[in-house]
């Protein structure tokens, strides 16, 4: 961020940047250094704004089938109380079917109850399977390496698994780094494609914010000494593998709460069904309410749809993050992302492109625009910084100055831009042009006997006041030295950010821009980008204080960071996304790591968190609303014989009691499979206010959940009523 503070003069170049706080350091190898976004796409400018789901391939269902059967182990099933009840129901009906082998209806119910259980396991298995592929890639990176451990200055070869915390290891070009650690000596380029998928190498060096290396990555050049910071088996790659596989998945607080509610509904319906037996016997419907029928009724009533899909929804939510190259260390963090009400966004790289660009040439003292543009272009040919290139580009694009290169001018004496002179320019045939920081150019003009008008000062002040950086363009020729005009250099807000922030506001999320700029500049950019608030001249302490203040008001805060001095704030924030380019301290402190190191992704993370919660709520609502239709199928089937009037409840006109009950059970099982893609992809999500979102989801999943089973059960009944023994 330090470069932002230089707006009084230096038109800094990428290589002079340091990363003091907050801002991602820019590896020298990446010329497009302004965008530390790696391969990640830019935020979809306004566009659909919709969080895309992962792909779902029906073949996965088939492939995961064996795993689903393996999951029938009661010790696994007991974790989901709803499905555990179905499992017990399946066992009971199996016993009953065996004792009465001629009963086609009993066998049909038994088979479909088992399928219900297996479908639930299948949903979870498919969700987990999607992480497996990623885990396999990671495992390949984790081949057992031989480490070159330094002991008292002497190298010895030990297996990578034998390393302990604090060991020093040497890695040279071609070596795989044996474990997570910090570079304590040397500098090297490292290929981290194994974990990030990004093929461009990154620089790792001792000291500073780029000292962290990850086990399993490959040194491409030079020699470094790494101090190991994690035990074997607990390295970043190990954790990534278990995360994407879902092995270490723990239920999130909201998931636990939902499970409690589902368990209590299961108990209520269990009571309703168990007590029904004596009522039915009294009514003379004892025969129609056999144990098989009652089990079928129970399975239909308890919220199996959400019970079956609940864990798949959670795994898929984590997986959607993984697909965006974000690793959440816990599901709790993903849930918290949905609740975030304040986003702290670093200005550079997140809101602005990260380097300032020329936006306008302002003439002074009656100079013609074309003259200024030509001089600005000429003087910037020797400035290879992004800012310099943006000036020549602007001259050509907006002021129609013909494109020129240094080679086009003969006998020219080029004045290259340096951090000391803070000027660039050219001298040809008695004419000299310069462009650069105000103070440098003013003193150059004065040196050559010229004066600087008040109009120039005013123009420069105006630009500075608007948050831009003024650069003066001056010329020295036969008429003497004089200022031609001012270049307005400004931070360019990324396309679509304003719309993005408007969306966030509608979602009830406040955005705060964090910048090292002075308040005036910060205010101008904040207004242009449309953020709600800004924190200027921010120090890590300020950031921390801001987070604590927001949290004291009950708000949940999300932020990104990469530096060691960000670590406390990352730990304090409810959602702390560490950039993968950052230090291990930052990665340790945050609860998510963005492998692409793209701070803009914070917005997507929030949306994925929300989508996860919405999916959970939508399927719960759907599941509960389904019960109405099932009652209308099963109640008349059980009791119409005893009380013929109750046949009026058979509003679906199902063909026989057996087929009605079986249809309800089949619908109940099939709806699980039908909703697996939805559980994995997440429901359609558009950023909007709570009211609109609730209305839409209630209509689709509440009303839809009421109506759909009436239609579904009827269709199934039409089909199975033709089967012998059922119809």
């Amino acid at each position, binding site marked *: 961020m330090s470069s932002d503070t230089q707006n009084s003069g230096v038109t800094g170049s990428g290589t002079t940047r340091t990363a003091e706080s907050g801002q991602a350091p820019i590896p020298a190898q990446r010329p497009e250094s302004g965008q530390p976004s790696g391969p990640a796409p830019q935020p979809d400018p306004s566009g659909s704004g919709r969080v895309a789901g992962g792909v779902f391939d029906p073949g996965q269902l088939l492939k995961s089938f064996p795993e689903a059967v393996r999951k029938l182990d009661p010790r696994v099933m007991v974790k989901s109380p709803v499905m555990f009840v179905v499992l017990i129901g399946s066992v009971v009906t199996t016993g009953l079917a065996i004792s009465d082998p001629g009963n086609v209806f009993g066998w049909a119910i038994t088979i479909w109850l088992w399928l219900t259980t297996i479908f639930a396991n299948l949903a979870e298995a498919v969700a987990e399977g999607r992480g497996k592929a990623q885990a396999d890639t990671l495992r390949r990176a984790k081949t057992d390496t031989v480490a070159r451990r330094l002991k008292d200055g002497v190298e010895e070869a030990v297996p990578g698994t034998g390393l302990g915390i604090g060991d020093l290891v040497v890695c040279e070009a071609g070596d795989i780094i044996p474990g997570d650690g910090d570079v304590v000596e040397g500098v090297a380029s490292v290929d981290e494609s194994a974990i990030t998928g990004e093929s461009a190498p990154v620089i790792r060096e001792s000291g500073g914010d780029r000292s962290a290396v990850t086990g399993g990555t490959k040194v491409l050049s030079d020699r470094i000494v790494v101090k190991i910071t994690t035990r074997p088996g607990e390295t970043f790659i190990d954790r990534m593998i278990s995360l994407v596989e879902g092995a270490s998945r723990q239920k999130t607080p909201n998931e636990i*709460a939902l499970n409690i509610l589902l368990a209590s509904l299961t108990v209520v319906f269990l*009571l309703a069904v168990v007590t029904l037996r004596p009522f039915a016997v009294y009514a003379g419907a004892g025969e129609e309410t056999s144990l098989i029928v009652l089990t079928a009724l129970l399975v239909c009533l308890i919220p199996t749809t959400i019970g079956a899909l609940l864990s798949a929804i959670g795994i898929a939510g984590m997986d959607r993050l993984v697909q965006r190259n974000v690793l959440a260390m816990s599901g709790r963090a993903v849930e918290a992302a949905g609740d975030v009400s304040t986003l702290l966004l670093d200005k550079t790289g997140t809101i602005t492109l990260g380097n300032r660009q020329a936006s306008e040439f302002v003439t002074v003292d009656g100079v013609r625009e074309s003259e200024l543009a030509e001089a600005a272009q000429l003087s910037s040919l020797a400035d290879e910084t992004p800012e310099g290139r943006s000036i020549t580009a602007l001259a050509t694009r907006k002021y129609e100055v013909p494109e020129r290169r240094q080679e086009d001018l003969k006998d020219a004496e080029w004045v290259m831009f340096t951090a000391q002179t803070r000027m660039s320019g050219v001298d040809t045939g008695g004419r000299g042009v310069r462009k650069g920081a105000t103070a440098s150019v003013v003193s150059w003009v004065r040196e050559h006997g010229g004066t600087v008008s008040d109009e120039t000062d005013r123009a420069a002040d105006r630009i500075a006041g608007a948050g831009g950086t003024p650069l003066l363009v001056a010329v020295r020729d036969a008429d003497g030295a004089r200022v031609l005009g001012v270049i307005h250099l400004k931070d360019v807000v990324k396309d679509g950010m304003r719309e993005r922030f408007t969306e966030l506001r509608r979602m009830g999320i406040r955005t705060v821009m964090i910048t090292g700029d002075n308040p005036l500049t910060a205010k101008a950019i904040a207004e242009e980008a449309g953020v709600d608030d800004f924190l200027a001249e921010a120090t890590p302490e300020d950031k921390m204080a801001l987070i604590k203040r927001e949290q004291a008001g009950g708000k949940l805060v999300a932020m990104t960071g990469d530096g060691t001095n960000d670590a406390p704030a990352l730990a304090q924030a409810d959602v702390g996304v560490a950039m993968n380019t950052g230090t291990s301290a930052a990665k340790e402190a945050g609860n998510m790591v963005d492998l692409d190191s793209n701070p803009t992704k914070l917005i997507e993370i929030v949306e994925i968190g*929300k989508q996860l919660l*919405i999916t959970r709520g939508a399927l719960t609502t759907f599941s509960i609303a389904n*019960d109405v239709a099932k009652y209308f199928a099963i109640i008349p089937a059980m009791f119409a014989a005893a009380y*013929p009037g109750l046949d009026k409840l058979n509003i679906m006109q199902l063909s026989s009691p057996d087929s009605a009950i079986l249809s309800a059970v089949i619908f109940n099982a099939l709806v699980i499979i039908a909703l697996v893609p939805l559980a994995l992809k997440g429901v359609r999500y558009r950023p909007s206010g709570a009211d609109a979102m609730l209305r839409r989801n209630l209509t689709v999943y509440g009303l839809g959940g009421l109506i759909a089973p009436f239609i579904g059960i009827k269709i199934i009944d039409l089909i199975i009523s033709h089967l012998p023994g059922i119809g």
Partner: protein
Amino acid sequence: MSPVLAGVLQLLALMAALGLVYRPLGDYMARVYSSDRHWRVEKWIYKAVGANPDTGMRWPAYLRGVLAFSAIGVLFLYLLQRAQGSLPGSLGFQSIDPDQAFNTAASFVANTNWQSYYGEQAMGHVVQTGGLAVQNFVSAAVGISVAVALVRGFARSRTGELGNFWADLVRGTVRILIPISVIAAVLLVACGAIQNFAGIHGVGQFSGGVQEWNGGAVASQEAIKELGTNGGGYFNANSAHPFENPNGLSNLLEVFLILVIPFSLTRTFGRMVGSVRQGYAILTAMVTIWVGFTALMMWTEFAHPGPAFQSAGGAMEGKETRFGIAGSAIFAVATTLTSTGAVNSFHSSYTGFGGGITMLGMQLGEIAPGGVGSGLYGMLVMAVIAVFIAGLMVGRTPEYLGKKIGTREIKFAALYILVTPALVLCFTAAAMALPTPGDSMTNSGAHGFSEILYAYTSGANNNGSAFAGLNADTQWFNTTIGLAMLLGRFLPMVFVLALAGSLAEQNPVPETSGTLRTEKPLFSGLLVGTILIITGLTYFPALALGPLAEGLAS
């Protein structure tokens, strides 16, 4: 004027009256429970019982107060009935049998007022006025106290303290229930209800023979019976008895008294949580169910087919001619949607559907508007459940009134909604499965089943009305219904107070445009849907075998 139009006008008059007092009464109650000044008479009471009304209580302490006070109430009332035979002013009635004394004591302390005795043939002045009437006041005040404690749980933050039970109990009685009861009793006397300590009169009948009528402090007891949603009649005929409910006007006044505190408490709630619109949303949900049920009830009672019914203009069996179908339907719905249980007509004689509506009203948990206090806290628990399910659909973990509905909160809410269905279904199933309880039925088939289902529904939900027909004065019914009443009253209170304690400790989450708006009509609709599906569906199979089978038979 057609009877239907008369019914609609009665309903509108009732709504207008309720609307008129909604704000002043609701605001007044909010002040009562927020004020830190004590009235002189209250200070005497605190001194007499040795309570410090200024200490803040955390939920376990508050609960201990509720349970200890109620336990003493049960014990006192039990002993009073057991000793009646040796007490003066008892009109010569005998002491009550142990099982019936337990049942009655549990019933009045639990704000149920299920009566397995005949008031005019069993209870003298001392028990009626010194025992039962006292509980009519304090059991109602306990209900409001618990509701207020829950409201404080929502309103307060970063404290575990829910207020002081003794202060809430005494203020509810002294500042709310007694003043309104006094006014109501005077109005009832003006309508023709009796108020005396006279003995038993023998009155000759046209058809020969002598009927025995006894006097009593009826109007005063009638007032608090309705106002405190108690429902225990002075006479066995309850509000159908002309001494209790002489005419159409008194009938409407009684319905008004039943509904006035439960509805107005939503205003109190809104005031105390700092947003009256939140109270309106809860009120909207309550009114929707109440008006819907009343309309359905009128429809089924007026339109019931059958030549006898048609010539009477509807199902008149079991209804008083001075109230007509509309006056009876309005009363029946009000009494079963609250925990009152007073009756001015016999629910057993209603059409199949009509009987079903009275049962479903209770089975919803009596929350529209429900008993005094218990209606509000029951509705708020349902709101917590609705927020939990639907709140997720706005993409945030659920929150209500700025409080997160997390694991602890949902655990207590889930346990709350488990209690009454478990009690109703298990006791009914036991009664149906065992050989002897069935002997108490006077009807067979679906109607007989309804009698037993109704009895436990009424007991566990603290309603207290009876379907009539069932002989409930047996050891089995006295004991099981007594247990159902106590558990159905106090277990939910445990969970409500625990929920309140957990909410009060939280740091509130500020509202943003991403927050679920719980003050909007959409939420009220959602709440009604959640109530109908979650609590209503639990009873669907049982209702199908009782009132639905009966209603659909014709």
